[in-house]
């Protein structure tokens, strides 16, 4: 019988072969991920009720990405607590600060999250796993239930298909697609409700590299998709096979599976987008936001933390300086990328430009534990959303753009169309093959 990708994956791990959307299952995940922000509340609660042993500690990956620098004494205490918790629980993989990097970036780079996998995570942007055709599902505080018992209830979601038509134009990036899609959904131009749905990209997806696939996951997740799925191309399969830490089997939706709806998204005329303050669906063509003065810029987050994002940023920053009065934070998504950008000369470009390179993690995107904004300030970044207060002051104004748009804006001091600047063509080309 025909199934969507999520139906197939859940059938595999729940042992119920004919699952369809709407069925409720208790999937036993391939992996359980938890980040530094919620370890303490989970451990305190489980200890209090007498659950000191986890159901499957070997499956647990504890990452430290939300507060890497310990922006306060309280954070340092929490870090200490987390290290002890990892020991007490005997977690299979513990990444302390400075190790691994962002939980929604490095596991895919390192072959730990692979096509066809299903895992539970406390965090919303586990959906990045769709970049390799895997499913990472957010549970929030309920991650404790999975840590303790091995599973929890989960309703098989419906799948909505977005069919990509056309190719990206020069200087337009995958992140721009997500911003544009969010707007179309908000306006009803694409009449879908993504809440509790898997958004599956289809059509001309072969063009998208691993980094671009990660970028495609970000905004639909903000629009409440419970999962994202991009069918792995040969290029993706090859990358995963080269790095895989264990065997995997990619899944693909059957062509005649029951999708809730299908919609075409033509990207051939798409220009750079800018998201205005308030919500990721408030996106406009960059021409409508040009000239807005900025104080703060940031390239990174789980939406744009891949190595190609750094190469794109470097293509603009090479030979230029961050404008006076602007501070630009660059946050690679992984230790691997951090090492690479030193080896490949990007670090020098960033330093010469006057950018502030932070250790891998969420950076300012996590409620400004680093790099906050003051009340009257304005920022453009590759964060996941532009909601008021995300970078500290609720009066500050947050804009979003692609790494090219943000880098360009950082050098001029105002929101700038990246097509109006010369960029280093070689770095742009290297970005396209960053994960080959």
């Amino acid at each position: 019988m025909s199934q969507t990708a999520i139906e197939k994956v859940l059938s595999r791990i729940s042992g119920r072969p004919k699952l369809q959307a709407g069925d409720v299952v208790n999937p036993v995940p391939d992996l359980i991920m938890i980040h530094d922000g919620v370890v303490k509340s989970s451990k305190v609660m489980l200890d209090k009720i007498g659950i000191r042993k986890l159901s499957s500690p070997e499956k647990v990956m504890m990452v430290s990405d939300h507060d890497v620098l310990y922006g306060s004494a309280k954070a340092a205490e929490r870090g200490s607590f987390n290290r002890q918790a990892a020991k007490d629980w005997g977690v299979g993989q513990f990444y302390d600060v400075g190790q691994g990097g962002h939980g929604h970036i490095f596991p895919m780079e390192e072959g730990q999250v692979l096509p066809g996998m299903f895992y539970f995570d406390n965090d919303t942007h586990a959906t990045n796993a769709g970049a390799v055709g895997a499913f990472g599902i957010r549970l929030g505080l309920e991650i404790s239930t999975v840590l303790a018992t091995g599973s929890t209830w989960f309703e098989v979601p419906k799948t909505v298909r977005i069919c990509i038509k056309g190719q990206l134009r020069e200087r337009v990036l995958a992140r721009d697609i997500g911003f544009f899609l969010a707007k179309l959904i908000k306006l009803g131009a694409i009449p879908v409700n993504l809440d509790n749905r898997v958004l599956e990209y289809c059509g001309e997806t072969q063009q998208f590299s691993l980094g671009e696939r990660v970028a495609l996951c970000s905004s639909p997740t903000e629009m409440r998709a419970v999962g994202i799925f991009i069918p792995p191309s040969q290029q993706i399969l090859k990358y995963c096979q080269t790095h895989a830490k264990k065997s995997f089997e990619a899944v693909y939706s059957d062509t005649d599976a029951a999708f809730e709806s299908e919609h075409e998204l033509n990207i051939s005329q798409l220009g750079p987008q800018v998201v205005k303050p308030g919500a990721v669906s408030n996106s406009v063509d960059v021409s409508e936001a040009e000239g807005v003065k900025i104080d703060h810029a940031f390239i990174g987050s789980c939406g744009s933390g891949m190595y190609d994002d750094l190469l794109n940023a470097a293509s603009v920053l090479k030979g230029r300086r961050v404008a006076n009065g602007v501070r630009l934070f660059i946050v690679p998504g992984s230790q691997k990328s951090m090492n690479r950008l030193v080896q490949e000369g990007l670090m020098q470009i960033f330093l010469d430009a006057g950018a502030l390179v932070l250790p891998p993690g969420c950076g300012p995107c996590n409620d400004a534990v680093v790099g906050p904004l003051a009340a009257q300030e304005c920022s453009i970044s590759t964060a996941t959303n532009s909601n008021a207060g995300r970078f500290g002051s609720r009066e500050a104004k947050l804009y979003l753009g692609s790494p090219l748009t943000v880098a360009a804006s950082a050098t001029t001091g105002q929101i700038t169309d990246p097509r109006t600047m010369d960029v280093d063509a070689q770095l742009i080309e290297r970005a396209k093959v960053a994960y080959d």
Partner: protein
Amino acid sequence: MIDFNWILRGRCYLLGDDVPHADGVIPQQFIIDRETDPQVLAPHLFALTDPDFVKRCKPGDIVVAGRNFGVGQKSTGYIAMQALGLGLLCESIPTQGYRGAIHAGLRLLANCSGVTQVCQNGDELEVNFVTGLLINHSQAKTHEYVPMPAALQEIVAQGGGEAWLKTWALEHVASSSSKKV
């Protein structure tokens, strides 16, 4: 059989559509701080939109909301609602919010189509959260909504996710440090 009160009776607190979780249900700072203590959160329910609410409300009161209640994928405010003994009826709620509300042990009915049209603020309501029956005593009308699945009712009846886990631990954990009552 668990002794759990599935029927709430109290006053309707009517809200509209798209009430954001951050600041609309509970101040954003508690979400940022990842606060989970009911004693800390309860005094701040609806603090930014109706600071006197917590002084006026009584256990059994029912929050009746429109579409997209609690939009923002958080669940902090539901801990506060449950601590205050409130129930929730809404026309729709994001799935992550629904999960969070159940985990907090909140009695709720979601997908109550048109419920904001059949209740006025202050109406005396009685809701049976197992059967989905709403009695509006002030308007002498009844309405039926689809209750949550039995498996989720079990979690709420236990007192939410943490309490459910505690019961699970008593059954499954060989040497539990908690006393059996």
